[in-house]
Structure formats: structure tokens, C-alpha cells
């Protein structure tokens, strides 16, 4: 299967767009290499700002530039931009309505054995609680390209979390997305999985395996965590009667938490939240860690079947 990195897709797209728009600025914090920025700094030196290893300052300086009309894309590790710069995001980006977009790279557990200091497993909980923020987790490189297009048309502050490695390409090249609108796959009515980021591919694999067993589910690619597509969640709940959320994030406060907030006020269907539990994560690659927590085809299939059983018990 074709694989590509989201960071590579972003870098390619932003270089292309920045050549046409002098107000686009890319900001790095000694992160141009890990961001795969390639030739951008050399080709557009007047639209590239290097601020050294200082993420808080990077967000504030970016907000200052945005206040003067620049469209600023800050790119660096999600772990540092979400937690270390949290106050700068809250005050200088969101509360101040400055057009700064953070591209948080190597998000979730992408950094693997580099450990908890480098993991971002609480970023979604934090970012989605800040008024005015857009929060996105694209599922593949093509979606990242489409999202960049959308972000360029939008002057709201945003946090976009992407992974480090290559992820399977599931969306067609040139496909479009709408911020705040989930993408539905399969369309079955036995259960629904709501997933984001690289977990969408794993959810689709599980859906394919379930199809073979005659279990038909819906998979929602919830690339936008905020503003959340509540309509899609409620519709899926009414149609399928049970929901499993799957995310590369703490089980607290992320996509699952967001879905729960909607489901518990709008419906009473069983909900199961699959994510990283509240504990120290073992050393290993992201795939090894996800497998360890059962966040793979077999594990997701098992959770879906359990949910369907629960739904059926409730309906008896």
C-alpha cells in the first residue's frame, strides 16, 4: 500500500502556496529537518523565521506577526507546542484571535522509544478546551494537503497534529475536506467507529475484517476534533446503536471524551473509548505500542463485537 508522511505533504503544499503569497510565513524552532521543510528556508528566506529551541517564544512572536497581517505556520514537535506553549496558545493565539496555525509534528506516540517527554497524548484534551481554536488530526498525506488548502482560506488559530512516519494513503489524491465535517466510510449499521489520524486506517482495516464476518459497520474519519461534527456523531449513534472511538491520545479528554459529551446529552447508546490508558507507555515504536494496547485490527474487531453484544443485551 502506498505510504506517505503528512509532514512531507504539508511542506510541499506550503512551499507551493508561499511562493504565491508573500504573507505566508513558516516558523521553526530548530525543527526544519524534522519538519521535512526541504528547500523552503533556502527558496523563501524572507518567509522563513528560525527562532531556536524556544516554543513559547515562537508562538508569541508568530502571534505578533499575525497581528500585522502575516499568515503564520509554526511547525515543530506537537509535544512541546501543545504543553510547553499552552499559555501562549491560549492567550496570544486564541484569546487574541491571531491567525497562527501550529503544525504539531511527531504527535501522539510517533517518537516511540524517545519516551513520555516527547509523546503528545494530552494535546487534544488541552487544545479543544481553548475557545476559538480549530483542532485537526488528518488521517493521511492527501488529507493533509487538502487541509492545508482549507487552512489557508481560514483566519482562525488552529492546532494540527500529525505523526512522524509514513502512513497508508487512504484518501484519493486531490480529494477535498471540509473543516468540521467528518468523512464516512462503509456505511454499515451494526456499529460505528469514530477515529482520527493514523487510527483511521486501522479502523478501516478492522471494518474490512468485520465485513468478512458479515458485520457491517460505519467508520467516521473525524479529522476535525473542533469544531466537532456533532451531527455525524448523533446520526451514527441513531443508525448504529453503539459507538467505538479510536485515537492515539489519552483515553481522557480527547476524541472519545468529545464524543461522550455529545452522546450523553443527545442519545443513550453504548460508547467505548479506545486510546492510551492513564499510565507510563512502554518503550517501543508507535506500532509496537499500539499493538500492545490492542489498537490494531484484532483489538478493534474485538472491541466492536463486545459493543454490539452490549447493544443487543440492552435491546432485549
Amino acid at each position, binding site marked *: 500500500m502506498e505510504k506517505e508522511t503528512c509532514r512531507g505533504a504539508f511542506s510541499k503544499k506550503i512551499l507551493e502556496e508561499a511562493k504565491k503569497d508573500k504573507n505566508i510565513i513558516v516558523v521553526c524552532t530548530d525543527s526544519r529537518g524534522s519538519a521535512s521543510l526541504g528547500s523552503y528556508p533556502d527558496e523563501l528566506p524572507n518567509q522563513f523565521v528560525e527562532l531556536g529551541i524556544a516554543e513559547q*517564544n515562537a508562538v508569541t*512572536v508568530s502571534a505578533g506577526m*499575525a*497581528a500585522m497581517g502575516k499568515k503564520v505556520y509554526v511547525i515543530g514537535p506537537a509535544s512541546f507546542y501543545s504543553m510547553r506553549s499552552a499559555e*501562549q496558545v491560549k492567550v496570544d493565539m486564541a484569546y487574541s484571535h491571531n491567525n497562527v496555525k501550529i503544525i504539531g509534528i511527531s504527535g501522539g506516540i510517533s517518537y516511540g522509544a524517545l519516551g513520555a517527554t516527547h509523546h503528545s497524548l494530552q494535546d487534544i484534551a488541552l487544545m479543544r478546551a481553548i475557545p476559538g481554536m480549530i483542532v485537526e488530526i488528518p488521517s493521511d498525506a492527501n488529507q493533509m494537503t487538502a487541509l492545508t488548502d482549507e487552512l489557508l482560506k481560514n483566519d482562525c488559530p488552529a492546532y494540527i497534529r500529525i505523526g512522524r512516519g509514513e502512513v497508508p494513503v487512504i484518501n484519493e489524491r486531490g480529494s477535498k475536506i471540509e473543516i468540521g465535517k467528518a468523512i464516512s466510510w462503509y456505511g454499515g449499521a451494526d456499529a460505528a467507529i469514530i477515529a482520527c489520524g493514523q487510527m483511521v486506517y486501522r479502523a478501516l482495516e478492522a471494518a474490512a475484517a468485520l465485513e468478512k464476518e458479515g458485520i457491517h459497520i460505519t467508520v467516521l474519519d473525524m479529522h476535525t476534533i473542533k469544531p466537532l461534527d456533532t451531527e455525524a456523531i448523533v446520526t451514527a449513534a441513531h443508525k448504529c446503536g453503539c459507538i467505538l472511538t479510536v485515537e492515539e491520545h489519552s483515553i481522557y479528554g480527547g476524541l472519545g471524551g468529545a464524543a461522550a459529551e455529545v452522546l450523553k446529552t443527545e442519545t443513550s447508546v453504548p460508547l467505548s473509548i479506545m486510546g492510551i490508558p492513564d499510565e507510563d507507555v512502554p518503550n517501543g515504536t508507535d506500532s509496537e505500542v499500539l499493538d500492545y494496547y490492542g489498537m490494531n485490527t484484532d483489538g478493534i474487531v474485538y472491541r466492536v463485537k463486545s459493543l454490539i453484544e452490549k447493544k443487543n443485551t440492552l435491546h432485549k
Partner: protein
Amino acid sequence: MKLTTEHKKELMIQAMNVRVKTVELIYHGKGGHIGGDLSEIDILTVLFDYMKHDSGDPDCPERDHFILSKGHSAEAYYSILEEYGYIDRQDLDEFGSFRAKLGGHPNKKIKGVEANTGSLGHGLGLATGMALALKLNQCNNRIFVLTGDGELAEGSNWEAAMSASKFKLKNLTWIIDRNHLQISGLTEDVMPLENLEQKTKAFGFHTLVVNGHDLEEIYEALDTQDAAGKPMCIIANTTKGKGLACAENKAEWHHKTPTLEQVEQMKKNMAEYRKEFA
């Protein structure tokens, strides 16, 4: 350029008016950061006279920009904005009431305010970003930012200072209201800042030290033409609570409401001072 005697006199009268207005605002609003308000008033008075700005055209692209990083000293800022017609007198009168337009910290929703501040250690970074954008656009507007001194314990200031220096932002002027006091006492006891002049110079600024209540000194520092292409830092030595006798140089007046008698006494002193001055 120097201030003419007449101009200086006008500014001194304005500064007195702003002092009285600020103290009344805090009295009627039942609270405010009075000590730092009063220490910064002479700086704000000269700055608003010096900067290119127009309340009739507040978004004018040619204007200079000001950020009050020590956002808690908002009452003096509001008073000077009212002097220049950005804020209505009624808005000042409603300060402290429910849903008032003017809150305890400045917000861009208020005409004339360029940045939302309140959490300390953000202003210099914002100013750096604004100055950098102007430089990239090859514009000549200037950015002025006023920080407190206690605020400088926030490391973000020094990250911003490194950046301003890296990008040679000669359009940026960082003014420090050096009143030597913060809520818990002397800055040098809470977290020593000295040698502040050497520190700012080491961070790449062209630093000048002035008496922050001497309008001429402030004006001349702002008008410095030769900063060797560096961002500028003006350390303005001030007195916390300046002009309110009972509050001068007292840390406990960082945030306090004066009594009616104290307000009246201050107004009386100011009136006498004005008579002498005239």
C-alpha cells in the same frame, strides 16, 4: 530632538490630569493596580505624545504600535487613551461594573489597544513579532512595548530579547518601568534583576537608562537616532505609586484602593503643584 519648554509644560499638566483620573478610576472602580499605574504615567504621557497615532483613524497603517506588557497597569493606560479620544469618559466611569467595556487587563476590543495582555512576559515577544513583520514588509513604523520589572523574572522575556536581537529589530523599543517593587517586596529580594543594564546590553539591545519621571529624558531617549541598528531598551527608573504620597515606594500599594480622603488629598497636592508650576 528636545522638548520645548512649552511642550514640556503641556505634557506635565497632562500627566497630572492622567494621575488624578487614574486614581479616581480606581477609587470608583473599587480596585486596581495603582502602584504600577502611577509609576508608568510619565512614560505613557511622553510616549503617546511621541508616537504616530490618531484616534480618528486608529487602524492607520502608518501608525506606531504600543503594547502594555504589564497589562495589570491598565487603569493608567485607559486614562491616557481617554485623553486622546480613544475611550469615552462614560467607559471610564463604568470601570469595575458588571459587563463594563474596560476590564482589569487591556483587550483589543477597546479602541486603541493593540494587544490582549495580562499574563506577564508576553508583550516583548508580541512586539518582536510585530516588529519583525514590519521589517519583512520594509515598513518604518515603530513598535513600543512597556514591561514591568518584576515581570522580567518570566523567562519568555529573554527568549524574546534574543529574537529581537537576532533579527536586528531597530524598529523595536522596549521600555522597562523600573520601580524596583513588586507585590511581595523589592525586586532584588524576590528575584534579583541587576545588573539590568548590562543584561539587556548582553542580549543585544542598545540600552539607555533614564529617570522615568523626567519627561525630557524620556523624550530624548525615545528619539535616539543612533542605536547601531540594534533594538532599543530604555530602563526608566520610576517610583511606584508616584504622586499619591501615601503609596509612594510601598509594595503593599501594588493593588489597593485609596480612600476618598487620600484621593482628595492627592487632588489638592496636584492643584497646588500646578499653581506653583504655572
